[in-house]
């Protein structure tokens, strides 16, 4: 076999491994960041006993999760019950594949050649030409984990929670897709790289958040609902549904559901940064790809902070109100926004 193909494959696999691990670490970091930030908003310190500033808290939580007894209730549908947490976690991670982390491929530092061949690493896992479609498709796949988890638990509360969650996720797919359609109209492409480089002009004013503020709002709100974040954290309304779809889950199986939710949030922040905040765009990002990566991280951090800020500020919405808001407000607003965008683009290009 061609050594170039082999080295490229190996490098790609290592890269995918690194990114997946980084996302899992991101989940661990998110649990701490969320607890710390929300604690500050409510005049508390948050976890500060495990390690300096509580930095080892995620490790402690992880060990707790791992060493808990794996209880499988007798009345569950075993196979589906065990599959559901994985089905919910994997799509959350996989959705990250199309997010471009920097502007262009770069060589691995200190190694110009491997086996006599130059190896360039692309700062994205896949440059799919229907990247946006991929994000939407994988995003809805996560619903399976939730509804199967709720159904296989063989418990009224779990089933109700699962149904409710899937209804919420599927409803909010629509306004999200419509908000993204206006982005597609602006960028003229579904490829994530293309969308990011379209936003590079005008010193940041070309970011789609400034060009399409309504689309941004709709996307962000729907994203919160789809990731099950506050104020749309209906999946885990503990005061109505015990634990929602995860009622019968414990130990690491619950940990996976939990992780799926957090990774979903991180990926949502990454996709928002990519689509609306210019991704890796910033001063000198074209020439020095590593700078673009840091710009990207900074933007993601800002969005995550806003998500936590919303969690600390706004109370949970009632289920029917949430559905009303989606179907009677976000969807029409998105359609109007789409029509206006199409009209303006048609006039300009005419």
């Amino acid at each position, binding site marked *: 076999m061609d050594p170039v193909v082999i080295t490229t494959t190996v490098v790609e696999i290592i890269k995918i491994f690194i990114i997946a691990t980084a996302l899992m670490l991101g989940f661990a970091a998110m649990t701490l960041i969320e607890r710390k930030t929300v604690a500050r908003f409510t005049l508390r310190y948050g976890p500060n006993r495990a390690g300096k500033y509580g930095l080892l808290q995620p490790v402690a939580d992880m060990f707790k999760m791992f060493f808990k007894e794996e209880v499988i209730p007798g009345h569950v549908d075993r196979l589906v019950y065990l599959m559901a947490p994985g089905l919910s976690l994997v799509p959350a991670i996989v959705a990250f594949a199309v997010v471009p982390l920097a502007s262009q491929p770069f060589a691995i530092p200190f190694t110009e050649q491997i086996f006599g061949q130059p190896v360039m690493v692309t700062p994205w896992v896949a440059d799919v030409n229907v990247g946006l479609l991929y994000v939407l498709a994988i995003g809805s796949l996560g619903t399976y984990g939730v509804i199967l988890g709720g159904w296989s638990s063989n418990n009224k509360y779990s089933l109700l929670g699962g149904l409710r969650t899937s209804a919420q996720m599927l409803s909010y797919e629509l306004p999200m897709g419509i908000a993204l359609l206006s982005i597609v109209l602006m960028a003229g492409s579904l490829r994530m790289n293309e969308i990011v480089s379209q936003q590079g002009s005008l010193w940041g004013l070309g970011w789609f958040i400034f060009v399409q503020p309504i689309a941004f709002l709709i996307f962000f709100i729907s994203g919160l609902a789809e990731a099950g974040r506050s104020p749309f954290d209906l999946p885990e309304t503990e005061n109505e549904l015990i634990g929602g779809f995860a009622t019968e889950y414990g130990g690491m199986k619950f940990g996976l559901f939990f992780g799926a939710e957090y990774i979903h949030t991180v990926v949502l922040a990454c996709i928002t940064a990519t689509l609306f905040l210019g991704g890796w765009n910033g001063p000198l990002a074209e020439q020095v790809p590593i700078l673009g990566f840091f710009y990207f991280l900074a933007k993601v951090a800002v969005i995550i902070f806003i998500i936590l*800020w919303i969690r600390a*500020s706004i109370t949970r919405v009632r289920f029917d109100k949430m559905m009303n808001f989606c179907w009677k407000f976000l969807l029409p607003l998105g359609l109007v926004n789409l029509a206006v965008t199409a009209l303006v683009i048609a006039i300009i290009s005419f």
Partner: protein
Amino acid sequence: MINEVKEVVTGSVELARAMGVTLKYFFRTPVTNQFPDEPVAVYPRFRGRHVLKRYENGLERCIGCSLCAAACPTDCIYVGAAENTDEERYSPGERYAEIYEINMLRCIFCGYCAEACPTEAIVLEHDFALAEYDRWDAVYTKERLLEPHDPPHIAIRDDEVFVAKAGWGQK
């Protein structure tokens, strides 16, 4: 239609106000008391764990009269008196408390023992961290009750208004 627009506008304003309030508190220092690391400040007249006082020369104030045990509504105090001798002198008077035990699981911290004491030997001071690993350790013996007892996790609150207006709690 006008109503809907109005609702959207007022709703957005309210949401922005809510976010503003939380952001304001985000930049304040937390009010949490980091208990074992930072002392907890209690009021000067706070009634906590008992302490058996001594005179300045080191002799015990308690004369073993059992008035505290008689006054105790939960019967949690036991006093066993013994005679002072010139070789072994514990308190200025004739008798002293050879055994002095308080069952902290029964004590209700009413302070009647301190009220009843003729020599002001027993006083309810400010320690409140009274957890034990063994139930029997909750029966405090005389050695543990005697002065000095000055744990690092307690501070006395300097409440000027409280002290000045009511004339309470001279330090």
